[in-house]
């Protein structure tokens, strides 16, 4: 492309995935991520790729496992209830150390919930939504441009570490249109000697597997995986700070909540309140050190979330409960307004 075009967030993800070399997409219809599948169904046949509408989200994630086990880039996308169905497969991807990109364009829950935007799958995404000890890399875009950039980044990280990278977006990010620029990128390939390509009668057979009946071996696999996770927590944390140099209050927010909070911060600054924001871009690894570094400087933290307060626990842990952390939230598909966030800033300012 190389030029700015107007795109929906969901379309930006799809186009960026193609630019990243992904030629296999498996999905199942669900609002509000449908445009990803629609875009792929148009593009993939024209570039020699595979678009397949599976019989269920469960089948789709297992098709992803099949392609990933052969060493190729592959993705699926869904929305909250569908992502719940994919958790079995995501656990298997973790247990097999297979890379894949999974996109969750969140909607309100629990159950069938609603179809309006939400951030209430934070726990599911960051704390291992399926069974067993594991993590996903979780990336939280806050613009259509980031939907594209983090999709490419997600494929690279997934390949680098042999694990699932999840784009945790929401219905707003998926549906809104913004100018976006997606350059042709140089695809960073990773050597995958474990991939199932047929032995060609030239090597021992490769096995992609998560079963270890001997508990001592399974323990070693888990320990090894957590060494990888420790390296990721050290090397791959991404966040953005906004007006934090002199901030007395720190808002923590991601995705659309961070966009809203920015407006509230500007309004508060106009009234002389020194407030800033730390926006996690990676939700796992969480920017723990960056938050802790602001704990002495700030009087209080405010977690702005579209959930009943999920990320707030990670904020409290990150700052080791040195300062109070307040919740500013709307749920069920409602989005907090800048006025509501401003009111919360003033309330917290008055109390601290």
């Amino acid at each position, binding site marked *: 492309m190389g030029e700015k075009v107007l795109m929906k967030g969901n379309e930006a993800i799809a186009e960026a995935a193609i630019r990243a070399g992904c030629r296999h997409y498996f999905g199942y219809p669900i609002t509000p991520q449908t445009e990803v599948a629609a875009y792929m169904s148009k593009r993939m046949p024209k570039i020699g790729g595979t678009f397949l509408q599976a019989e269920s989200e469960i*089948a789709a994630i297992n098709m992803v*496992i099949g392609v990933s086990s052969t060493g190729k880039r592959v993705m699926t996308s869904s929305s909250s209830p569908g992502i719940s169905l994919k958790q079995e497969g995501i656990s298997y991807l973790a247990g097999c150390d297979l890379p894949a990109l999974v996109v969750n364009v969140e909607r309100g829950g629990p159950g069938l919930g609603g179809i309006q935007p939400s951030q209430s799958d934070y726990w599911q995404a960051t704390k291992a939504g399926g069974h067993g000890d594991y993590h996903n890399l979780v990336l939280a875009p806050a613009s259509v441009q980031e939907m594209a950039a983090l999709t490419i980044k997600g494929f690279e990280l997934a390949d680098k570490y042999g694990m699932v990278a999840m784009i945790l977006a929401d219905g707003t990010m998926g549906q809104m249109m913004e100018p976006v620029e997606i350059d042709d990128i140089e695809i960073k390939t990773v050597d995958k000697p474990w991939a199932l390509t047929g032995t060609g009668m030239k090597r021992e*057979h490769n*096995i992609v*597997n998560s079963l270890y009946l001997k508990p001592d071996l399974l323990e070693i696999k888990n320990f090894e995986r957590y060494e990888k996770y420790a390296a990721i927590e050290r090397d791959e944390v991404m966040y953005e700070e906004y007006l934090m140099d002199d901030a007395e209050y720190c808002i923590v927010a991601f995705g659309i909540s961070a966009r809203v909070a920015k407006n509230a911060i500007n309004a508060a600054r106009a009234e002389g309140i020194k407030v800033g924001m730390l926006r996690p871009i990676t939700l796992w690894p969480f920017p723990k050190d960056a938050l802790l570094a602001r704990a002495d400087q700030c009087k209080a933290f405010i977690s702005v979330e579209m959930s009943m307060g999920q990320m707030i626990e990670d904020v409290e842990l990150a700052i080791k409960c040195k300062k109070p952390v307040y919740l500013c939230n709307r749920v069920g598909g409602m989005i907090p307004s800048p006025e509501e966030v401003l009111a919360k800033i003033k309330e917290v300012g008055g109390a601290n």
Partner: protein
Amino acid sequence: MDVVFKKPHALTDAPLHYCPGCTHGIIHRLVAEVIDELGIEGETIGVASVGCSVMAYDYFNVDFVQAAHGRAPAVATGVKRSDPSKVVFTYQGDGDLAAIGTAETVHSAARRENITVIFVNNAIYGMTGGQMAPTTLPNMVTQTSPYGRNVEAVGYPIKVCELLSEVDGAAYLERVAVNNVANIRKAKAAIKKAFQNQLDGKGFSLVEVVSTCPTNWGLTPAKALEFVETDMLPYYPLGVYKDIYAEGGEK
């Protein structure tokens, strides 16, 4: 000295973990012989399922991926779509294929996915200790049907070949058994055809192998083979249920 009988190259040297009298060993050997005879070992990728045959990945000398319970046809779909030049097969039991994986089975058939499915039907969940399966016969005693399968309460067995024969996408469906030498020879011919179909691009081919579980049936190996003849085959008749490329028209 002339070698008159040897292990197929497509089988590894790993000792099989199956119970005495279990027919998985025979079926593994038939699949491996077919892989040898077709000369496809280097291009074949297997998909193991959940159940007694979960460790098939250790026994076959080909690349393998282990799938979650029931999901082998979906995983195989991904593998095949990734590289259609590879020969992709699943090896699944009755609980895996006909209960938890029913949707994956039916829809991979409906898509005429160009894969080979080896379906081992012994009418019981063997790995977990002998529970009622979707293919457990009426009145058959299992751990979870201790008074015999009461069809009034728990429903009827699923006849997979008959069910799939109504799916337009399915290309080749045959039910075979391995309870005697004659049947074993027919089983091998069916398995070979199911792999040859894939090489010829003919699409979804499934061979249902009526098998035994002496341990959980509570029978000696010899009695288990008799049970196949007297009880299993009357309910699960052998034969070709569908062959869209059959000489003289579709069967």
